[in-house]
């Protein structure tokens, strides 16, 4: 039976992958490689940034203690559930925008013949480990509750702000060329060639 297992795993993974690919191909094509995609992602990420005071308030234990001292267990649970929903949806939105920026990079990288193998592999490892870290973080929020995640939220806000700054600067530094077809130029990019 143990000799059979690797083959069954390969077969099942293959069928799952093709199902995923076919499902993806049925969705409308996103032209994420276009410059505006990157600008939108940065703008959306900026919009998702919550002011530190608001983050403090959402994850504040004082609220929990106040509600706990005046209301019953049911209300406390309701508060915890609501705050958890906010935390998870905010994390998901942040991850979605980071993914969008990474997609922008990948859709550009796939077109360049002078792609740097080692850099791309490093990037893939970084991206996949970041994705795993997001998953872990969400799991811990779900497991321990939002009020225990307060000190973990600060870094997320910090890193999102950092992404906005870096990509904001990058937008001004990049130059694009157009290989063949004519198309309306991206709003603020410099197009040469």
């Amino acid at each position, binding site marked *: 039976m143990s000799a059979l297992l690797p*083959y069954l795993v390969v077969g099942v993974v293959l069928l799952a992958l093709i199902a995923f690919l076919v499902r993806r191909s049925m969705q409308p094509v996103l032209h994420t490689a276009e410059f505006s995609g990157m600008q939108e992602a940065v703008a959306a990420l900026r919009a998702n940034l919550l002011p530190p005071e608001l983050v403090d308030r959402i994850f504040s234990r004082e609220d929990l203690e106040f509600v706990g001292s005046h209301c019953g267990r049911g209300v406390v649970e309701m508060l915890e559930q609501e705050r958890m929903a906010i935390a998870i949806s905010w994390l998901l939105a942040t991850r979605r925008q*980071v993914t969008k920026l*990474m997609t922008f990079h990948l859709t550009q990288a796939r077109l360049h013949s002078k792609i740097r193998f080692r850099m791309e592999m490093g990037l893939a490892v970084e991206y996949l480990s970041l994705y795993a*870290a*997001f998953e872990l973080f969400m799991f811990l929020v779900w497991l321990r509750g939002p009020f225990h995640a307060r000190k973990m939220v600060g870094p997320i806000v910090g890193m999102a702000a950092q992404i906005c700054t870096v*990509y904001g600067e990058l937008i001004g530094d990049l130059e694009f060329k157009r290989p063949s077809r004519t*198309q309306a130029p991206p709003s603020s990019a410099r197009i040469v060639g």
Partner: protein
Amino acid sequence: MGPTKLLEIALWWTGILVAAVLFVRAVHTGLCRKYWLFFSYLGWVLAVEVVRFYVISSDAHVYRQFYWHTQALSVIAGYCVILEAYRGVLRNYPGAQKIATTILLALLAIVVGKAYSHPFEGPTDWLLSFTAEVERDMRTVQGLLIAFLIAVILYYSIPVGRNLLGIIFGYTLFIGTNIINLALQSSLGPSYWTPWRYLQSASYFVALLIWCITLWSPQADPKPEAVVLRERDYGLLASRTSNLLSRVRNHIVRPFGR
């Protein structure tokens, strides 16, 4: 002749008919020239199926040996489909092509190294001793190659046209079910012989139907994006994204270390 035998023959002949129709249609639409590697494979399998039917009708004892000999060549011909898929998917994406080629060469070096440590006794002996176990292993290699290609497609968000997607979809479905089927056959032995035969035929028939639907008429392949970064700016983007992801990860992971 029992109803199961009749069903088997009906499936066999319908498969031959569907493959022949697809082949003629592809010659007519020009897809045969565009995907010549895939249609070489299909033509080979079609010819083999017809000859196999003739052999089993004239001498059933010779059939088993004949089946495994031709099956070995069919499995090798299957690599044409994989080549076609790689060629078609990565043609317009030199960056993704470079990454995929580098990794594939590394994998090839590992496979060749492993083969040298367990050398074959010779091509003739290998062909004569071709069995379900050998087919299972060769199909698994094909499965891994396709899985890697699909991973590249998904990771780099490469758009795939309907025709090519059909080729990949049909063949992956066929290979995936075949690996599971052959593994069960090798493990369970003769008791699984009859279900194995039916599943083998059925999975190929389903693949044929998928190919027939998706390759019935030529579809334009999606073109790469019109706006592309300059080479030096790609380097800038890559290094900044890399630094950023690394800092972001450290930010997220740090609180857990406290």
